[in-house]
Structure formats: structure tokens, C-alpha cells
């Protein structure tokens, strides 16, 4: 029995902004879906099933936004699955779609990612509610403070400095200047980063991500369909892993010690194993990592096997992950320059697909043939990884 391979045929995304008040939510979804269909040269009637990826509804202004948007993605009469793994939602969507296709259930699956963060008054206030309500919320935690606890351990034990974090921010903002869809188009200097407002030491405003409205969509298909296309991004490996709930439980474990997110490492290893990747630093051409904070990007260099344990900062110091380096990370600017939460993982996946199809425009990495996309959700608790290639396995 031959294995059913899976490929991405096309990707569509919206312009990301603090508020997309210029369109309603279904129109925002339609903007992404219609671009994905056009990019993949696919008709809506050819779509067999839809996976809808949208994270906390409290951001959306409506519950079950897939109901309101059903016509915008042509869902009537078709199987529909909603996925939600916090920030990792946009990574879980294509993962689910891939398995639906490789199992032989459906041939063409549309994945839609949506988040309209502008509909919430204060996202960080909402985020306090994701922590243990009995023993942890009283200390006034949120996403930023949770990640700041990672950053201070990276600084104490792995040599991370404000210089490294500033260099990451500058790299990602520079990359975003070549991505017309990015939310933030602003040239910044390392001094700007160091002068930006303190949020939770050692994290400053320019170490973090914006709150964005936006949607994204990909069309995925069986290898049989994809073989007839002039370009497709082939799904070579997928991974997915969850970690424990409480941050305190992730300190003093032997694998990560709450400085290197271990569930990201677990999920990446699954994807590498499935893809047959042994040395990710040498084999991968480009990485679209879901890193909403500059310190996390450095931690992920290690979790993803791009640098040895404790050596993530060396990739910053050598410029290896810039567009001129040997392993560019987030050529699109990444989530530090656009973060519609539930859609963000799907944007990483779609951008990685564009890279291996050679269609990433001004932020194309020359000759990219093998790419990694990740997603992260629930304060470092849920992770996905996907390896995409320019050629099929067989």
C-alpha cells in the first residue's frame, strides 16, 4: 500500500493591523481564503473539508466565529473541524488537515486561521486567566511575565544579554520591511530596543509582539493532486507536543530547566524523525519560528537543534539567522511584527510553504528547499512543528 503524501498548494493572508475595522470578520476571512484559492489555482467547489483554526474567542468579539464566517470559507455542506490550542492553533490546523488527507478521508482540505485581537479591551488581562486560579493567579501573572521568567534564567545560565535580544528585534523588524503583509513596518536600532519601555524585566516593549487583526488560509492536497502542479510545498514531517500546566513544574527538569522550552524540542524531534532530518542546522534552509519574544527566539535555536545546548546566543553573535546567514529565521519578520494569535502559526506554515515553492517575494531565501515552521501556545505549553520541502519524498 502506498503512503498518501500531503502537499500545500497555496497560501493566502491578509494585511495585518492593530484593527482591521475596514472589514467585518467574514470579509477578513474571505480576503485570506480567496487569496489562498487563487494562489493554489483551486476552486471552492474542489474543497472537500475545512479546518478552522481560531484561538481564544474572548478576543474575537463573537463566540464560535466559524458560524458567522461559514460562507466566507464556503463551508456549507462540507465537513468542518475547529481546532484550538491557544497560540499553537494555527500550527494545529495544518497538522489536522495533513492527517485528514494522509488517512485518505479527504483529498483537498482548506485550513483557515483567524484572530481579531482588536475586539478585546486588554489581552494581557485576559491572559491572566489562563494560569492556575487557586495558586498562581493572585501573583498577577500574564504572558509577558511568564516569558520574562524564562528570560531571566537564560540570562543567568546561558549568557543571554540585552544586546542579543536587541539584535533579534532589529533583525526581525528589518525582515518585516520586505514583507508587505507585516503589521509593523518600522526600521529600529538596537538603541531603540534598549530605550523602549520596561514591561517585565528583562523584557521591554520592542522585545515583544504587537496585537494584530488578521486571517490566513492554506489549501492542502494529496500528493497525487500536487504532482500535476508546477509548484507545491510537500509536508515531510509533523510534530506536536504538550507540556505540564504550571510554570514551576518546568523548572529543574533535566531537559530544559525552564530556559529551553522542552515541548518545542519534543515536537521538533518528531517532525525531524518523520522527515529523516539528522542535522537541522545543515539540512534546513529556512525557519519560520513562532517566537513572540526576542529571548524565546534564542531559546528556540537550541530547542530546534539549530545550536547546541546553551549556545543559542552564538547564532545571534555570528548573524547566522539573518537573511545573509546560513539559516535565516523568520524572513517574514515573524510574530514580533504581526501576531493575530490563532492565525499566527498558520502564517508561519504558509510562509515556510512559500519559501520552498520559491514564491516568498522580496523576503525569499535563495534556493530554499527545506523549511521548518513552528507554533507555540498556552505560555510555552503547546507546540507544533512542520517540515516542508520543495520535492516529494518519493
Amino acid at each position, binding site marked *: 500500500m502506498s503512503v498518501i503524501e500531503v502537499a500545500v498548494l497555496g497560501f493566502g493572508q491578509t494585511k495585518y493591523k492593530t484593527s482591521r475595522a475596514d472589514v467585518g470578520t467574514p470579509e477578513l476571512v474571505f480576503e485570506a481564503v480567496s487569496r489562498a484559492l487563487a494562489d493554489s489555482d483551486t476552486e471552492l467547489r474542489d474543497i472537500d473539508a475545512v479546518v478552522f483554526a481560531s484561538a481564544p474567542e474572548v478576543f474575537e468579539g463573537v463566540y464560535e466565529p466559524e458560524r458567522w464566517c461559514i460562507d466566507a470559507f464556503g463551508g456549507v455542506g462540507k465537513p468542518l473541524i475547529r481546532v484550538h490550542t491557544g497560540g499553537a492553533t494555527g500550527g494545529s490546523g495544518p497538522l489536522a488537515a495533513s492527517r485528514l488527507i494522509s488517512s485518505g478521508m479527504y483529498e483537498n482540505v482548506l485550513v483557515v486561521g483567524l484572530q481579531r485581537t482588536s475586539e478585546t479591551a*486588554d489581552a*494581557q*488581562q485576559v*491572559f*491572566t486567566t489562563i*494560569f*492556575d*486560579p*487557586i*495558586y*498562581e*493567579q*493572585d*501573583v*498577577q*501573572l*500574564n504572558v*509577558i*511575565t511568564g516569558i*520574562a*521568567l*524564562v*528570560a*531571566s*534564567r537564560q540570562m*543567568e545560565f546561558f549568557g543571554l544579554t540585552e544586546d542579543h535580544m536587541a539584535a533579534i528585534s532589529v533583525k526581525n523588524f528589518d525582515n518585516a520591511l520586505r514583507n508587505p503583509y507585516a503589521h509593523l513596518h518600522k526600521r529600529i536600532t538596537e538603541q531603540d530596543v534598549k530605550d523602549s*519601555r*520596561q*514591561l*517585565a*524585566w*528583562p*523584557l521591554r516593549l520592542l522585545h515583544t509582539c504587537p496585537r494584530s487583526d488578521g486571517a490566513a488560509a492554506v489549501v492542502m492536497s494529496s500528493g497525487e493532486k500536487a504532482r500535476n502542479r508546477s509548484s507545491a510545498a510537500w509536508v515531510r514531517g509533523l510534530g506536536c507536543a504538550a507540556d505540564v500546566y*504550571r*510554570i*514551576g*513544574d518546568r*523548572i*529543574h527538569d533535566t531537559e530544559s530547566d*525552564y530556559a529551553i522550552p522542552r515541548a518545542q524540542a519534543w515536537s521538533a524531534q518528531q517532525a525531524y524523525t518523520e522527515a529523516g532530518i539528522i542535522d537541522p542546522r545543515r539540512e534546513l534552509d529556512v525557519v519560520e519560528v513562532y517566537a513572540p519574544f526576542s529571548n524565546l527566539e534564542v531559546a528556540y535555536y537550541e530547542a530546534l537543534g539549530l545550536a547546541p545546548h546553551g549556545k543559542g546566543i552564538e547564532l545571534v553573535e555570528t548573524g547566522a539567522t539573518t537573511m545573509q546567514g546560513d539559516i535565516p529565521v523568520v524572513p517574514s519578520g515573524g510574530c514580533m511584527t504581526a501576531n493575530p494569535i490563532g492565525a499566527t502559526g498558520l502564517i508561519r506554515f504558509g510562509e515556510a510553504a512559500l519559501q520552498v515553492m520559491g514564491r516568498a517575494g522580496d523576503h525569499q531565501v535563495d534556493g530554499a528547499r527545506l523549511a521548518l515552521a513552528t507554533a507555540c501556545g498556552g505560555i510555552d505549553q503547546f507546540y507544533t512543528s512542520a517540515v516542508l520541502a520543495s520535492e516529494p519524498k518519493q
Partner: protein
Amino acid sequence: MNSDHRGTNDHPGGELTAPFWEATARHELVRPVCGSCGRSFFVPQYLCPHCGSENWEYEPSDGRGTVASYTVVHRAPDPRFETPYVVAVVDLVEEGWSLMTNIVGVPGEEVEIGMPVEVSWIEFEGDTLPGFTPREKAAV
């Protein structure tokens, strides 16, 4: 610290959690200790996360720990909350458990990883929360 505005959470009763909060009200820090493997754990849950035993009891903690990680928060999730304040994970070193907490009684810039601390009680709205404060140097 403006205690009027912190915390909005009830601490539900029940055998699992009530003894912890009853103890804090008496200014006593307690922790679950497993009768099977002898290890401490936190937060309280029905089965010991180390060995799976349900044979555990609350025992007093010495309240002496070190800072495992920390951050100085300049923008509170609840905007009414007075900043800056310190969020930290503290290791109860001798007892082998840790908890998410606040460091109080010291400016944020003086906190560091590895700093010896001891429990210090924070009162608000009728609840008593365990915070930590630097141990007197003489006592270290």
C-alpha cells in the same frame, strides 16, 4: 503594595485545597508530602506527581527558599495594581518543592536568581497569601 486591588480569586474549599489556605490564614506554610516516596510537591493534587501515590499529607514547611527565577513587572495585567512588583518562582530548597509567588520588602533591582528568601505574609480582602522576602543576612 496596594493590597486592595490584588487578587480576584476565591480559594475554594474541599479537602484538597482548604487546608493550605487555612494554614496561610494562621501564617503557616504547608506542603503536601508523599507518604510513599517521601517527596514534597506543589500544587496539591490527588496523586503524588512523583510516584502516583494517593497517600500524602500536608506537613509544615520551613518557609526558607531561594529565588529560581523572577521578573520585575512594570505593567500589571490588572491596571489598578501598583507597579513595579516582583513575580518569582521560589524553590523551597531543603524540602524539594517550589511555588509561584511575589517577592516583597525589597526593590526589584536588588532581587537576583539564587537569592535566599523566607516566607512573608501578604494580606488582602480577608485572604492571606504566601509571599517571600530576603532572609536576614545574619540568618543565611
